[in-house]
């Protein structure tokens, strides 16, 4: 690959809202985009530390989200508690296996893979890895794109609770896993947003002309 110049090497700040480039001043403090007034940063501030903190918090909450009951169904036949996984198994056994696959993927696999991917991205950036730059950028893009679909189970619970309110016949209540699971989704989304993919490419670039812009 031919050596190409990045905005940081050229001492230019790229506005994350409108894409306007502006020269980085030598001063400190908040710099704003001359065109849209958005705050400018050479890299997202405290990107790695924030990503680590949010990802670890999500990893911890992933455990109760999967072990605690997601919902409690009370009917004439008694009451039954369901975790995310037992909900998937119920869908599978009742014959709607495409839907079981969708729920399994969105609620179990996506959050797990997302947490692993974020840990890998943060760790490789921290080690200044120069390997697989394009693949890691693609991974980041995928994490950002797919994260929202984990909200699926939260919405399913909302509707089940709201619809199944037949007093005496059947009622459904949300369980504690719903809160933990919602937190996992929100935390991983914030973690992906706070990660700056440009950090992946920084090891192969030269130093910035001004050295007062921390990026980690």
């Amino acid at each position, binding site marked *: 690959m031919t050596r190409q110049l990045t905005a940081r090497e050229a001492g*230019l700040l*790229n506005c994350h809202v409108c*894409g306007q*480039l502006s020269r980085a001043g030598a001063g400190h403090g908040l710099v704003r985009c001359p065109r*849209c007034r958005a705050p400018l940063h050479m890299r997202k501030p405290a990107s790695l530390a924030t990503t680590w903190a949010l990802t670890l918090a999500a990893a911890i909450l992933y455990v109760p989200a999967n072990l605690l009951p997601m919902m409690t169904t009370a009917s004439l036949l008694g009451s039954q508690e369901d975790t995310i996984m037992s909900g998937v198994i119920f869908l599978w056994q009742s014959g709607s296996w495409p839907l079981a696959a969708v729920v399994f993927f969105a609620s179990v696999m996506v959050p797990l893979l997302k947490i692993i991917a974020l840990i890998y991205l943060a760790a490789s950036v921290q080690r200044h890895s120069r390997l697989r730059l394009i693949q890691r950028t693609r991974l980041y893009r995928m994490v950002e794109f797919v994260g929202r679909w984990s909200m699926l189970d939260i919405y399913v619970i909302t509707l089940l609770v709201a*619809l199944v309110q037949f007093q005496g016949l059947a009622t459904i209540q*949300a369980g504690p896993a719903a809160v933990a699971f919602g937190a996992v989704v929100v935390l991983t989304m914030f973690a992906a947003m706070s990660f700056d993919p440009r950090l992946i490419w920084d090891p192969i670039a030269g130093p910035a002309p001004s050295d007062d812009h921390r990026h980690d």
Partner: protein
Amino acid sequence: MPAPDAHLSLPATLIACHECDLLQTEPRLAPGETARCARCGAFLARNPPDSLDRTLALTCTAAVLYVLANIYPLVGLEMQGRQVQVTLASALHILWQDGMAPVAALVGVTTLLFPLLELAMILIVLVPLRLGRVSPRLAPFFRLVRSVKPWGMVEVFLLGMLVSLVKLSHLATVILGTAFWAMAALIVVLTFAARAFDTRLVWQTPVAEPAP
């Protein structure tokens, strides 16, 4: 507070990739073409034909569908002669009463509040632009559109509705409400609106002009 140097000193076509920071010149795009980063393949810009008019038309349609999706019942259940119907707001209310306030808040923000904010902000930015009135005061609204966008999840909600209905179809008769179809249409319209929206329109207007 130090101000960055005037941006006019840089060539207008010079841009940097948001994902790998590579400097490159933005190619002139024919209508319908998309520019991607030469190094990492990230999306840089698109030139949708007739962007302003189409985005405005689709956003107005979306606003009407949004209202329909919120005032009519989404889905209903019939079980042994008893019928239950829920709107989005009543579903949130039940969940809140059920002691699941954080979950209800999360659902409300992602399906009610943020889609509404996004639609409102797009209209606030684009209507003056269409009327030829450009003001740098619009910039904060557009920044709000960008920060709110990832949190509007109407399409995930629709899939969630389908999953819950399949789960319930063994238990009771499922009735799809007006709002269900309005929401399905809303997702299609929002997708087309996002594709039609050339964000550069907001910025390619001369902002250096001081307000009179």
